[in-house]
């Protein structure tokens, strides 16, 4: 017999026993007994059929399953009998397990799963490393690599099997058949990058060595752009597309799963040297490359790295007047990709674990409360010979049922939550590969069983712990009973509240930090300014005069649009990032000693109206005029930070900055403007502004201050651009406010998620508190009745009950605050202008908790104080 035939087997046994009994009965009748006598005699000879049936069942090997099914049936019935309790418990479990599963899915894909490359463990990123601690503080310890450094590393060292490089780029992709032009994100990767990663093209091929040269004109498409822009037509391979007006031949399409270095959706790849001037390739001081290296099988990372470091030190000594780092540093590829998300993910994971713990404790608490009302049932069962294991098993199955139902709902919930999280989280590495798989489901199952054990075992053990006699005695007197269970509930509650406090404090700190970021004054107008990026293709705009002509006529046209208060042109607006920086010297100052840190400042372009449009105040000197063009005269405007740092006790106006890259010339300082933040959350950096009309053709950003709604201007402005050059796409049409919001998106996301977890935990804890106190109050009804009958004042009773409920809350609060002192270390590095021991946050959390706790206690306490002594004593 197989286990699924239990029913059939049982019926078979019944039939067998019945036929035996009937035969016996018949024999008795044949011996002359009357019908009734025969039946009794047969039963005497046969024995108790029910008992025999049970004993026979016990002989079957499927007995354990039968017991399990029976317990299961009983549990389902018990749970259905109190649907309110079951619903809340399942809901709590679903939320907790769902959130935990979602977060684990993301963490696994982003932090734990090996990258989908050949032997990903031996892939590292190599960066230039400046030893100056002041520079290290602003993340220059992992500095991008310059092209000449990369070339020397690759040719002069042998510790790595190979080294490859990629850099950022973008192109104007113009339509072959009249499609709209668009600005596409691009990466330029050295020809050996794809073979090194072990990535083969899905269609066509990757680059060859001979194609990787400055006039290289081949391109690879990522799958998404291949699908969207080119209709997933494989015949695109071998055809030409136009990038910045130049023809490029499509040689291949990358596989759909390939999302290195990030999940940028629409992207093309060109060879690394493509579009770079041979002169640029010889620079040791332009840092814009990311270098990926593969370790040789028998060479350790430190050996390989020290070889590269030695080469780099030589380069540094040969270029003391240029920013060439002294050393190199490495990260694994996974670390490199996860650098911005590891911390927030860890914090979220801790928060969600905390919440799961609270959820389990809450369900445990509810179960303890229920087991109190079922004490008599349990006592009678154990008095009738039920073994303790059987009773514990019964209760565990109940919590398992809750956990499984909640868990299944939670996993379904997490499917949606994960999708939401991945789309909401900006720049999440390997975002496309985040999905629920076997491992995630296995972890979810493990979570479910852990939750069931945690929430079921404690109440089960405590409710079955006592000897039956003691239990019967206790349950006959409601006043004295269940001391141990009350203690158990109170300690569960204390832990629950402590965990809530930790969560609340973490959330409070993150929220305050986010608020500080959000309300930072960036130093310019934010809400009324629309920005719009474009870059003029060098083929078409090949002289400074053409560039200036376009820019000036665009500004003239935009200024006359209705609703435009002011318009200016720059390169990078405040809040949009650090981007380009350069070194400079001050001819009026004594030369720097060789080896000393070099002067460095951010490099910006500005039109005459740029500062007034953004409302950046002029501190001294003047703004640019239309005559500051084409480098005659060579003028520069600096910000306050640069003036303070490099001209501490002198007037910078009239002094000069000598800048090498853009003309190797002295630029006269004509003005000082106030600081702006290049990124919210960072200190203002030294900045130099050059006239936009110098003919430099880098990326431009149009800034327009609107009279009313700035976004309403975007279409009219784009129409003006299209009139000037229909082939020119624009990008990033955003207000400065939106730029800031985007840069804070992830900070806001993690702060609000942790807050959501914390609030949910607070609700759970207060429900727990309410439940415990209501239970205590019902238990003490008789006692309170006696007290009131003996003359206790209602107020005294209220105080008594409140004290009873608030004590665990207080203990939990103190415990939680103590744990928080250690836990804030985790969030410390994520805080901006917020101290980890912010007294306001700690006080606010304590106050919130006490108020909520008091609220939760008040209702049962008040109810207890209203007890009618006569009725209370009568129910005894």
């Amino acid at each position, binding site marked *: 017999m197989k286990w699924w035939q239990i029913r059939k087997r049982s019926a*078979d*046994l019944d*039939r*067998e*026993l019945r*036929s*035996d009994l*009937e*035969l*016996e009965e018949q024999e008795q009748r044949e011996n002359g007994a009357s019908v009734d006598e025969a039946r009794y005699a047969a039963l*005497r*000879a*046969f*024995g*108790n*059929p029910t*008992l*025999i049936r049970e*004993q*026979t069942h*016990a*002989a*079957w*090997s499927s007995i354990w399953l039968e017991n399990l099914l029976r317990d299961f049936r009983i549990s389902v019935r018990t749970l259905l009998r109190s649907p309110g309790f079951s619903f809340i418990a399942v809901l709590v479990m679903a939320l907790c397990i769902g959130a935990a599963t979602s977060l684990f899915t993301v963490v696994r894909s982003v932090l734990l799963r090996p990258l989908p490359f050949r032997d990903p463990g031996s892939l590292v990123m190599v960066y230039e490393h400046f030893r100056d601690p002041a520079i290290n503080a602003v993340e220059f310890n992992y500095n991008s690599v310059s092209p000449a450094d990369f070339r020397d590393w690759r040719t002069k060292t042998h510790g790595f099997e190979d080294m490859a490089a990629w850099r950022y780029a973008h192109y104007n992709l113009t339509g072959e058949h009249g499609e709209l032009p668009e600005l596409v994100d691009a990466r330029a990767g050295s020809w050996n990058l794809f073979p090194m990663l072990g990535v083969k093209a899905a269609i066509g091929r990757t680059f060859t060595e001979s194609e990787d040269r400055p006039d290289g004109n081949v391109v690879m498409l990522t799958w998404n752009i291949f699908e969207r822009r080119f209709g997933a037509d494989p015949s695109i391979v071998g055809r030409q597309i136009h990038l910045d007006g130049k023809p490029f031949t499509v040689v291949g399409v990358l596989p759909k799963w390939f999302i290195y270095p990030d999940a940028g959706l629409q992207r093309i790849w060109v060879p690394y040297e493509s579009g770079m001037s041979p002169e640029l390739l010889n620079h040791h001081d332009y840092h814009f490359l990311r270098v990926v290296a593969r370790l040789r099988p028998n060479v350790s990372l430190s050996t390989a790295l020290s070889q590269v470091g030695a080469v780099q030190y030589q380069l540094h000594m040969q270029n003391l007047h240029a920013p060439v780092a002294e050393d190199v540093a490495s990260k694994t590829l996974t670390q490199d990709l996860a650098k911005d998300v590891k911390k927030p993910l860890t914090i979220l994971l801790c928060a969600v674990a905390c919440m799961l713990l609270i959820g389990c404790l809450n369900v445990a608490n509810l179960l303890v409360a229920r087991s109190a009302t079922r004490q008599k049932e349990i006592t009678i069962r154990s008095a009738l010979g039920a073994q303790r294991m059987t009773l514990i098993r019964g209760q565990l199955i109940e919590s398992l049922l809750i956990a499984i139902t909640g868990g299944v709902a939670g996993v379904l919930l997490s499917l949606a939550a994960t999708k939401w999280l991945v789309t909401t989280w900006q720049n999440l590495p390997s975002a496309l590969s985040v999905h629920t798989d076997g491992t995630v489901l296995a972890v979810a199952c493990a979570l479910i069983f852990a939750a069931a054990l945690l929430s079921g075992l404690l109440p089960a053990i405590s409710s079955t712990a006592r000897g039956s006699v003691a239990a019967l005695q206790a349950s006959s007197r409601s006043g004295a009973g269940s001391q141990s269970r009350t203690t158990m509930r109170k300690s569960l509650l204390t832990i629950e509240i402590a965990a809530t406090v930790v969560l609340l404090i973490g959330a409070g700190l993150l929220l305050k930090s986010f608020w500080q970021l959000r309300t930072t004054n960036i130093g310019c107008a934010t809400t009324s300014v629309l920005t719009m990026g474009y870059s003029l293709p060098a083929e078409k705009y090949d002289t400074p005069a053409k560039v200036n002509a376009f820019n000036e006529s665009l500004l003239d046209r935009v200024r006359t649009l209705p609703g435009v208060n002011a318009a200016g042109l720059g390169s990078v607006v405040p809040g949009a990032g650090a981007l380009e920086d350069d070194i400079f010297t001050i001819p009026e100052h004594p030369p720097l000693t060789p080896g000393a840190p070099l002067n460095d400042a951010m490099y910006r372009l500005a039109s005459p109206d740029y500062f007034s449009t953004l409302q950046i105040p002029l501190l001294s000197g003047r703004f640019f005029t239309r005559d500051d063009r084409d480098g005659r005269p060579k003028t520069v405007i600096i910000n306050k930070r640069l003036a303070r740092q490099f001209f501490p006790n002198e007037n910078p106006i009239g002094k000069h900055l000598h800048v090498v890259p853009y003309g190797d010339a002295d630029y006269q300082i004509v003005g000082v403007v106030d600081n702006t933040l290049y990124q919210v959350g960072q200190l203002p950096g030294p900045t130099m502004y050059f006239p936009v009309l110098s003919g430099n053709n880098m990326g431009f950003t149009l800034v327009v201050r609107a009279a009313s709604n700035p976004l309403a201007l975007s279409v009219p402005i784009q129409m003006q651009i299209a009139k000037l050059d229909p082939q020119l796409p624009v990008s990033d049409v955003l207000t400065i406010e939106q730029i800031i919001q985007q840069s804070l998106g992830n900070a806001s996301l993690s702060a609000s998620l942790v807050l959501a977890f914390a609030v949910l935990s607070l609700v759970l804890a207060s429900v727990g508190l309410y439940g415990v106190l209501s239970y205590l109050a019902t238990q003490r009804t008789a006692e309170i009745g006696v007290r009131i009958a003996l003359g206790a004042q209602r107020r005294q009773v209220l105080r008594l009950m409140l004290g009873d409920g608030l004590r665990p809350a207080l203990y939990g609060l103190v415990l939680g605050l103590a744990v928080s002192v250690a836990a804030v270390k985790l969030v410390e590095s994520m805080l901006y202008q917020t101290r980890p021991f912010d007294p306001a946050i700690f006080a606010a959390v304590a106050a919130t908790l006490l108020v909520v706790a008091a609220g939760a206690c008040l209702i049962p306490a008040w109810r207890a104080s209203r007890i009618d002594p006569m009725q209370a004593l009568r129910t005894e």
Partner: protein
Amino acid sequence: MTRQTKQSANLLQGTLDMLVLRTLLYGPAHGHQIGKHIQRTTNEFLQMQHGSLYPALHRLEERGWVASKWETAPGGNREFKYYRLTEKGRKQLVVEESQWKQMAEAVARVMWPTPEES
């Protein structure tokens, strides 16, 4: 108290298995027949309710020592579940029989010692 009952039950249980197997050596029989046969053969000495046979029968079947089949009783129209000894059961009977013999001899040697040994 409990412990003692349990021990004697175990003893009886083992014996009962052997008695059932031995009874089935005569040919297939249903529970009632087996019970009656054991009672009659022991001259009603074993005051056994034949219901208590069924746990033993099912246990023997689980172990594969007997096999069962619903069959119509000869000369009647009623169906009974007939148990029949399997090859494995036959071997088991030999084992149990020899064990019982050894046990009985050992007990006998203690209870009624032969003169030369005492």
